[in-house]
């Protein structure tokens, strides 16, 4: 495997048994949360994963880090298949891959001081040396923009943005190479989001981190990601460099998603390029046959229902899962993009 690749997911699948049971209590249906996802994370780069609720992106984050066991598939971290390792080896591998969570309130133990929280990964991994740990904690706090003298304070004494900084500090304690950030700014106020995003960018450049950034806010992902993967109903429908995906989306869903984002300019109001999707997202228990998006796609044909389009390069080199990728670039405002 090329040394340029930090992480690779191969055909990841995660099915959850549903609540409905037959007479004897055996589950007969599955929620197909992640249904065959493959991607590559390049070293030192950020891969943004976007999608709406129910697309499986949060489940994907947990499967990639093996917080949830995948139903099938592999995850290669720097060439090593973490789905095949266990015990001490897995523990050692986990040092390289850390996670930042969405909710700054519930992801920090309210009974632990900030110092304890940030040092916890070191303690868990048996790397805790009492004397050095305080120094390390202070160093990390400074790195994420917190006052190092506050290491004895408790989470409730900090604001939302500061708590998220604590969570980031904790994720850096073991000097990981890969960070999985699951909606790290969604629960924060707008004015604070920007601070945290700036911090993440600075850390990435400074520490050479490779990052997977999961979000539902497309503007945020556009800013921070080098590559973007768009998910729908458990599958990736399009993946590519961020600028390409945002300016020339190949998949109809990507186009509709981007066109639904409100533009921050009232003079662009009323443009005609807007695409409005009709209907609801189908259930992940029983996804549509063939292409999953076909029930809401304005150009679906019989072929779309019969054969599921594979995720592969189209005529123009964009990687998309569609029989009829979009050709025209996205224009939503009165003025062209």
């Amino acid at each position, binding site marked *: 495997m090329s040394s340029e690749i930090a992480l690779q997911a191969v055909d990841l699948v995660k099915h959850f048994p549903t609540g409905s049971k037959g007479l004897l209590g055996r589950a007969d249906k599955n929620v197909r949360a992640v249904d065959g996802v493959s991607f590559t994370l390049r070293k030192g780069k950020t891969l943004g994963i976007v999608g709406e609720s129910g697309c499986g992106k949060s489940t994907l984050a947990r499967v990639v880090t093996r917080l949830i066991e995948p139903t099938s598939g592999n995850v290669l971290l720097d060439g090593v298949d973490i789905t095949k390792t266990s015990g001490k080896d897995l523990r050692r591998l986990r040092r390289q891959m850390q996670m930042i969570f969405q909710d700054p309130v519930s992801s920090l133990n309210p009974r632990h001081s900030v110092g304890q929280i940030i040092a916890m990964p070191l303690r868990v991994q048996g790397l805790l040396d009492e004397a050095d740990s305080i120094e390390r904690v202070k160093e990390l706090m400074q790195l994420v923009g917190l006052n190092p003298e506050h290491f004895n304070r408790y989470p409730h004494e900090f604001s939302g943005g500061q708590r998220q900084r604590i969570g980031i500090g904790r994720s850096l304690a073991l000097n990981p190479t890969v960070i999985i950030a699951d909606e790290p700014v969604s629960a924060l*106020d707008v004015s604070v989001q920007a601070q945290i995003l700036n911090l993440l960018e600075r850390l990435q450049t400074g520490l050479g981190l490779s990052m997977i950034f999961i979000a539902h806010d497309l503007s945020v992902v556009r800013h921070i990601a080098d590559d973007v993967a768009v998910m729908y109903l458990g599958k990736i429908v399009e993946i590519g460099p961020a600028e390409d995906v945002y300016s020339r989306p190949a998949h109809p869903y990507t186009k509709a998603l981007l066109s639904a984002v409100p533009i921050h*300019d*009232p003079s662009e109001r009323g443009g005609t390029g807007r695409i409005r999707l009709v209907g609801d997202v189908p259930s992940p228990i029983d996804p549509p046959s063939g292409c999953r998006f076909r029930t809401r796609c304005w150009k679906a044909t019989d072929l779309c229902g019969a054969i599921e389009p594979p995720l592969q390069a189209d005529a123009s080199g964009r990687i998309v899962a569609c029989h009829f990728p979009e050709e025209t670039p996205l224009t939503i405002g009165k003025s062209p993009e």
Partner: protein
Amino acid sequence: MTENSVPVLSVQNLRVSFDTQDGTVHAVDGVSFDAYAGETICIVGESGSGKSVMASSIMRLNNSSTATTEGRILVKGLDVLSASEEEVRGIRGSEVAMIFQDPMSALNPYFTVGKQIAEAYVVHHPGASKHEIHDVVLAMMIKVGIPSPEKRIDEYPHQFSGGMRQRIVIAIALINNPKILIADEPTTALDVTVQAQILDLMMSLQKEFGMTIILITHDLGVVAEVAQDVIVMYAGHIVEQSHVDALFHAPTHPYSWGLLGSVASYGDNKRGGLVTISGSPPSLISLAVGCSFHPRCAHSKGEGSVCMTVSPSLRSVGSDGSRSACHLADDVLVSVGRGGFRS
């Protein structure tokens, strides 16, 4: 005198504070504004700005045992804050209607959606026949875009998706043709594609019913899409009130400028660093002396200056009808703001 010169809603010097264990929280600290027929006003603010508390006050929904409210809120000539319980009940759901943020918990899980929409109608039309109610409810469901309404009218809320539930909430709100619709973050809990559908629906219904919409949000994109007038709130005050174009192209308060700057920079070059506002929203327990934004303001004049000693009041700035609560609005900001980040 045209009817447009009489505001349908007039909020005058509203102050709302809550008694909590930690002290008195001054959620709304002197807010005044008017809303006219057919207008769409967006109230923008982050958590702690007081926008939701202010919105609940319009229909007197705040818990009277913990909240102290002062000021006047005039709806159709009636001062909501000093009216009797019966008078306020009379305008709730008929003159003024409200939709809330989380559609998943906004509906009563124990009754069918048909019954709940009907309930809103029957409260203000007590003599209506069963037939009439059924027709009205069905018509409303069709209008808000619920597919196969004859079948779904007898279903329960948990059988609907989030977007559909919000449509039902809108149906409940609009069934009595209210003059004013208050929408408290109506799309925040929804996916972006559903959000677009719901905003479209609200706008087309507004055109049809001719009502005033007061939309509360933290999302500036939504503001850009639908607003005519914008009120920016911070720490319980209005810091800026402008026409939407003026706000986006020439904001007159450092907070607005910071907000717009931080989201606008998303679309621009990457890795350039986003414009940020340092610090965090303030605690509302101890009222700041002077301007409540000054601890985070890049333009604050510092120790002993008017920014730290005198609380600014909302006043006219410039010539396009903008109002700003900043001591420095005239001198520094207007010239900096114009031609700022949106040329």
